[in-house]
């Protein structure tokens, strides 16, 4: 079998707030194979975002091991982590996190600004192609604040796709969207996962959204308490 996309072993994360220590993660071990689509669920404060940040190389665990495509990244310094984020990971956030007063195109090409060997013409082409793949080519020159939430999230997906990452992480990507727009976004994710074989990890509170994923894990108090596969637990969902 090939190396798993993500392999974490006994991961803990402790936040120190003044005198007290907050145990956000209490020993998490899990493995995500390349090309999988995983949803993480659980009550608020259970440590989902904390886990996502570590998987996304935005943060480092307090203890434990994290192998990203076989590479031990939990010991990397800031700049090395930035490199990994740039080359291997695409992020999609609940609040879109686009640059305000900036065109869709400029937002989409942002990751390429920080990777060398690409000139501005190639950068534009790649950004336009990514916008096209999320159906927003005609909005390329619109400023982000002139776009709807769904459109903004699609630009964020285009941006996440730009460096052809092997892993896309989405923290509540549909949290700020209505049902119809959420479905559109999930269609895009499903397509990326099935056609391009991109590994997808998504946090969500909504069971119907979670059912787009082929695997679901449930967290509580910084631990994984349950795992579901396929349509298990989705029988009552409309799809």
């Amino acid at each position, binding site marked *: 079998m090939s190396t798993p996309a993500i392999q974490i072993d006994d991961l803990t994360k402790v936040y120190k707030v003044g005198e007290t220590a907050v145990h956000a993660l209490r020993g998490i071990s899990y493995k995500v194979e390349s090309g999988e689509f995983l949803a993480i669920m659980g009550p608020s404060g259970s440590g989902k975002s904390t886990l996502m940040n570590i998987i996304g190389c935005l943060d480092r665990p307090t203890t434990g091991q994290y192998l990203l495509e076989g590479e031990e990244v939990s010991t990397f310094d800031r*700049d090395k982590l*930035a490199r990994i984020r740039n080359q291997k990971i695409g992020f999609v956030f609940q609040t879109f996190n*686009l640059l305000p007063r900036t065109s869709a195109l400029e937002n989409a090409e*942002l990751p390429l600004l920080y990777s*060398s060997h690409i000139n*501005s013409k190639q950068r534009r082409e790649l950004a336009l192609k990514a916008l096209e793949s999320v159906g927003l080519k005609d909005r390329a020159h619109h400023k982000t604040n002139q776009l709807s939430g769904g459109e903004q999230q699609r630009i964020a997906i285009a941006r996440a796709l730009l460096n052809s990452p092997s892993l896309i992480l989405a923290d509540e990507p549909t949290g700020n969207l209505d049902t119809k727009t959420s479905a559109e976004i999930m269609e895009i994710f499903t397509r990326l996962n099935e056609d391009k074989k991109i590994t997808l990890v998504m946090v969500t509170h909504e069971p119907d959204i979670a059912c787009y994923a082929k695997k679901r894990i449930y967290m509580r108090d910084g631990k994984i308490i349950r795992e579901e596969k396929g349509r298990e637990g989705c029988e009552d969902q409309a799809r």
Partner: protein
Amino acid sequence: MNILRTSRVALRALGRNKMRSFLTALGIIIGVGAVISMVSIGEGAKRGVEDRFASMGTNLLFVSPGSRSSHGVHSGSGGFNTLKPEDATAIETQCDAVKYTSPSASTRAQVVYGNKNWSTSIQGTGAMYPEVRNWELDQGTYFDEGHVRTAAKVCVLGSEVKKSLFEGEDAIGKIIRVKAIPFRVIGVFKSKGESGGWFNRDDMMTVPYTTVMKRLTGQEYISSIDISAVSSARTKEAQTQIEELMRVRHKIAPGAEDDFQVRNMSEIAEGAAQATQIMTILLGSIASISLLVGGIGIMNIMLVSVTERIREIGIRMAVGARQKDILLQFLTEAIVLSVLGGLIGVFFGIGLSKILHYIKIFSEFKTTVSPSSIIMAFAFSASVGIFFGFYPARKASRLDPIEALRYE
């Protein structure tokens, strides 16, 4: 990220807030403009002084009483009254590097013509004064040795005096009164074209030095001797010859202090130029303060900008910007602001110094914008950008990506 890409990102960011960027740059514009125009005034003054001295002739020497010694206390009473007209004659005849001499004795007095009067400087000179001082006559003739010998009551007017007393009227042959003594005007000097009260050589008149001594002041000694060397190249030689001769004539023992001093024009010009140099430095430093204030303005705005854009910084970090990239981005913004400000400031400064030239009190000096002051102001403004931009930029680059992304 390479420099070109970084500056483009910086320009775009600054363009998003044009008014603020302009106001921030304005501090630098004014600072650089002030430095350049102030230094140009100083340089102009220096150039003006140098030109003025050069026009007096670089082969000019002066002998004056009193020693050169730095303690400057002169022994005996009347320590200053040591020069006699005979010294001048001796110098002219015995020093072969000397061409002409003109003894000098001067006073100030009221000059009256008809119902007009004018207070001016009355210079007693020898007959060779115009040659020594490199000064031409506009009308009439200068007085000759005969006039000097007889202490004749004749005078030559500076153009300003002529204008004040006679206006358009012809002055030659007219009688004017100085201390109730009638003087016949026999010549008028060509104007030196100097306006204003500062060292104005058109506001004076000359009479034979003997006339000043015998008729106006009653003094027995002359106050100095103006001397021209045969050429500029032989000025130093003339100075040595004069010193040797004077020591003999005044019976000064070897090692004893001289009771006279010989100075040449270039020495005097140097001293004056040094004084204006100090003025230039002073003006420049005062103007630099405004550049400093402009720099603080940049730092202030950059700090505000970093706080406003914490979210943006988080986004950039999330997609792979390293600390170095963020640092460079904000530093570049500060540098672009200050360099653009500096560039506009250079033109502003050049314009300002041109305008200052038309303002009366500065009109004497041609303001000259030197390339060195431009380069200096520009380099200074760029370093202001780097210096004051660094702290906010470092602050931005040290943000934690997650906290920056969550920042409301």
